[in-house]
Structure formats: structure tokens, C-alpha cells
């Protein structure tokens, strides 16, 4: 994919605050560079999409190239939770708890139709949460059932773009 196409599909960068003093913006840039290039996901997968997530980490697609290498099993040490698969009513409180256990800053990717909207289990189903954004805030949505590993890589790259927009002011606002 060409760089131009990658930047063309959204207008994320237009939201970037203009102004600010040189010192702070430089620090912002450094921190954002660090954060965006070192997104450690939580080892968490509920169903089919998890297999594609594993495939994305494996030899052919190799997540690690982007610095997303270290899958941490402990939520305390991870930055990103990839909700790969259906979230059901019984799982929703657990997911919320996992999200709460993660340390700031933390990001969420909703991977696959189930996590985005309930997917094939939207109708006639008594136990499925229709979209993980009912439970935790989502940064990037990746559609597909299941999305290909390339789609996950693309989603993560979009997340990196999003992280690069953060400023120290934002962080303070969140903590308040």
C-alpha cells in the first residue's frame, strides 16, 4: 500500500491540536513515538478471531516488525487489548475487569464482526453482547468474520496513528 493511500482514508490528523510550546510538543512527540512503536497486546482471545490474531503474530505476517511483539499474559503489563471474538453476557464483566486492571495508557481494538456489533449472533441470540463498545471504549474497529491478519496489521497501524495524536494535556484530562 502506498503511504498516500494509507493516510487518505481518514482525517485523524486534522484533529491534532495546533499550537503549544516547542518543549512540550517535542516531549509529546518523543512519548508518542515510544508508545506507538511499542504496543504490547494482552494474550486474550475468545474465539475464531483469536486464531487469526495468532496467525498475525506468526512467521508469515509477523506482528513483531511493528514492535507489537511481546504478548503479555498479565493485563498490568499490556497496552492493548485486542477483543478477538464474541463477548457474551457472562464474559462482559470479566472483560471490563481485565480492562480496569490494565495500566494507563491503554487501547482497545475490536477485532471481527462479533466484537464490532455482535456479527452473526446479532439476531435471535440470548447471550451475546452486541458490540464490545457496550462494555469498554474502543479505539479501532476491524470488520470481518474473521478479519485477515493483514486487516489486523492495518488496524494496528491505524491505532499507531491515533496514538501519535495524543498530547500530555489529553493524558491529564483523562486522569481527572
Amino acid at each position, binding site marked *: 500500500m502506498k503511504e498516500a493511500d494509507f493516510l487518505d482514508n481518514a482525517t485523524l490528523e486534522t484533529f491534532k491540536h495546533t499550537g503549544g510550546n516547542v518543549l512540550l510538543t517535542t516531549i509529546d512527540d518523543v512519548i508518542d513515538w515510544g508508545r506507538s512503536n511499542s504496543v504490547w497486546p494482552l494474550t486474550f482471545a475468545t474465539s475464531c478471531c483469536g486464531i487469526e490474531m495468532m496467525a498475525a503474530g506468526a512467521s508469515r505476517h509477523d506482528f513483531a516488525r511493528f514492535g507489537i511483539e511481546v504478548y503479555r499474559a498479565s493485563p498490568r503489563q499490556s497496552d492493548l487489548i485486542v477483543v478477538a471474538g464474541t463477548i457474551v*453476557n*457472562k464474559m462482559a464483566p470479566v472483560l471490563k475487569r481485565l480492562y480496569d486492571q490494565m495500566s494507563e495508557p491503554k487501547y482497545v481494538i475490536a477485532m471481527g464482526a462479533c466484537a464490532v456489533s455482535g456479527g452473526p449472533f*446479532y*439476531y*435471535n*441470540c*440470548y*447471550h451475546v453482547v*452486541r458490540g464490545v463498545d457496550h462494555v469498554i471504549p474502543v479505539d479501532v474497529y476491524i470488520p470481518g468474520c474473521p478479519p485477515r491478519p493483514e486487516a489486523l496489521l492495518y488496524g494496528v497501524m491505524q491505532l499507531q496513528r491515533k496514538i501519535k495524536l495524543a498530547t500530555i494535556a489529553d493524558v491529564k484530562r483523562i486522569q481527572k
Partner: protein
Amino acid sequence: MDQDKLKERITALVPEAEFEENKQFLTAFIPAGKLHTAAQNLKEAEDTAFDYLFCQTGVDMTKYLMVVYHLNSTKHGHSVVLKVKADDRVNPAIDTVCDIWRTAEFLEREIYDLLGIHFNNHPDMRRIFLDENWKGHPLRKDYKDEVNIVEL
């Protein structure tokens, strides 16, 4: 044993058994009270030796609830289907067979969870999939859930 012999065998064991015709397997309705003894006998007797319960299903037939046992003998290779009715829709109860076939322990919990059939003498009769405080049993035909189900 072929189907006719099995039929005789089961009739001798449970005289009240009713047989359904034209099925893939030999199918017999057993009264709920006699299920446990019949099952025990069918498993332990040398000539039947139904040691493998390969499927146990709860069905809501609207008038009554039904549990279907698919049995197979790994020794002789023959199969039989036992069906047991639970007429009471409010408090249905059937004897457990999990002391005979261990696999029934989980299957019965599933049936209890989704259809609300209580199994007597089961060691751990709790819901398996849904929360403990979930209301109703989803696989029943009259199950209504305005909150969770989006009808197509």
C-alpha cells in the same frame, strides 16, 4: 444384536416400553421411573453392553419435555435410542445416569441449564453455561427474553 432382538430384550426389561418405527436407530420410550434400572441393566448385561453414551439431548416437545439418550456398544457395535418424558413442565425431574456413564455429568448439567430438567441424585446440579441468576431456560419453546433477543 439386531434391532428385533434388542427390542425383545428391552421389552423383557421394561414391559411398558413403547417403540417408534422407521427410525435410524431402534427407539424406545421408557417411563421416567424405570430409566435408571433399565440403563444400568443395559450397560452391565453382557449381551447388550451399552457402555458408550454418545449423545444426550433435551428436547422441548411443547406438551412435554423429553430427554433422548443415544447409546452405543463399543463391544457389539449396536445402538439404541432411549427416550424419557417429563410431563411436568414446571418442575420436571428425571433420574440421573451420570453414575453409569460419566459423560452424562456435564451433558445433564447442560440440559438442566438450557431446558430446566432437574436430574435427581446428580452430584453437582448447577447451571453450566449461564449465570446462576439467569431467569428461564432458553431452549424451551416458550422462552421469551425481551431484553436480550433481537428478533429477525
